């Protein structure tokens, strides 16, 4: 409480309360009331705790029907990019067969899941993306990834010519907000949804020339 609040403001506030708050709440007041309502309306259940409602800056900046100002978006992206953890030993690819299993699985992190460890989680990729075009049951929230590596002419992942694509792809999987501040895609590495090896498997699904995605 500010002890130096002018008398006029105190009188005005008291009058407003007395007449039953005749003036409608301001946008800022509604923002605050909404946050309070959200916090008061949930309880813990299983692994899903109410602390999940605590927003980080990238979440709170992207919680509107309007995009954040460009300088805010650039700051979010830069911060996300700086926090990317690159794979040990420069080993970017795993096994595309394991990648396909992860892409098919939408499991994990809900209050009906027993564990919140990456081993219990899938990548949910087909929920939003087309990948192997033999799979008809794919979502359209994200762009099609059919022929992802082929289109980008990634033959040998170790080839320096492929480095930009390989690093962009790893970065996207680790923290999608690094390239798009308000991306709809979860931050699989950053949020601990998938571990390094699982992301390697997804990288292989996307970039291995032998992957069904690149046939």
């Amino acid at each position, binding site marked *: 409480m500010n002890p130096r609040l002018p008398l006029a403001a105190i009188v005005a506030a008291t009058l407003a309360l007395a007449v039953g708050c005749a003036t409608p709440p301001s946008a800022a007041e509604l923002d605050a009331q*909404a946050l309070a*309502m959200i916090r008061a*309306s949930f309880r*813990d259940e299983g692994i*899903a*705790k109410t602390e999940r409602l605590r927003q980080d800056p990238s979440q709170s900046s992207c919680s509107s*029907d309007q995009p954040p100002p460009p300088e805010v978006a650039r700051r979010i992206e830069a911060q996300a990019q700086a926090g990317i953890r690159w794979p040990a030993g420069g080993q970017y690819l795993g096994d595309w067969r394991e990648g396909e299993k992860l892409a098919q699985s939408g499991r994990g992190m809900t209050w009906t899941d027993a564990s919140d460890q990456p081993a219990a989680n899938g990548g949910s990729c087909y929920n939003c993306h087309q990948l192997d075009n033999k799979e*008809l049951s794919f979502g359209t*929230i994200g762009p099609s990834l059919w022929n992802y590596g082929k289109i980008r002419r990634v033959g040998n992942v170790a080839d320096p010519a492929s480095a930009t694509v390989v690093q962009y792809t790893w970065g996207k999987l680790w923290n999608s907000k690094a390239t798009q501040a308000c991306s709809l895609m979860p931050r699989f590495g950053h*949020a601990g949804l998938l571990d390094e090896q699982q992301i390697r498997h997804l990288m292989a699904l996307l970039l291995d020339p032998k992957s069904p995605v690149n046939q």
Partner: protein
Amino acid sequence: MKLSLGLAAALCCLLPGPAAAQKSTAEGIAEYRRMLEDGNPAELFEAKGEELWKKPRGPRNASLEGCDLGLGAGVVKGAWVQLPRYFADTGRVQDVESRLVSCMATLQGFDAAQLESTPFGRGEMANITSLATWIASESRGMRFALPQGHPQERRMYELGKRAFFFRGGPMDFSCASCHSEDGKRIRLQELPNLTKNPGDGVGFAAWPAYRVSNGQMWSMQLRLNDCFRQQRFPYPGFGSDLTVALGVYMGVNAKGAASIAPAIKR
């Protein structure tokens, strides 16, 4: 998940061949749903709900026929398409399910907190679902016209809008992540754009609904509950202000859309 065996079986009778798969898959599913509409199991819940409305029950051995759903005590026809709305007796904006809790407590003597904490599908919560199903059926075909005349109703619309766009949880999801664009789908499930009127019988206008895939009758509170589960959020309180505010936001946006509740879903 690969296409379920039943759905695949239905589709392979209807699809001309793999080349035309994309458009035909959506058509196939629409056809599957039409096949199911010949006898919607929701009718059983409607019948149960009507019985529960009229039967004297609870510690006070009273029926719910004195319950005001917004159009006056006992008036059920047309009430559903004007909910959620403000109620002077509780001083709250309420949806049909939280209003049923109020009426079951006030008229019949049930314990409100106990009702709200009963899991979906069990005991009195199953009865609330049946009642909501019947109440919705009494407005079938009518068009949404939620009132926004009271300041609390307008406030709840604004809070509901903000809640709709609130990103949180380990996957950064909000309602808007899936429901703020036209023409999107998760896997093969089409997603209505709930920031506007998505059309007759779509979105807010399609619940309560019977879900064939799990054999369950889902009210709007359960639909929202499972949305939050899949958003990786914690557990929303039954009839909480958040759930009611989201109902106001979606219902006001759906103004003019015809309700088809109770519907049938995959």
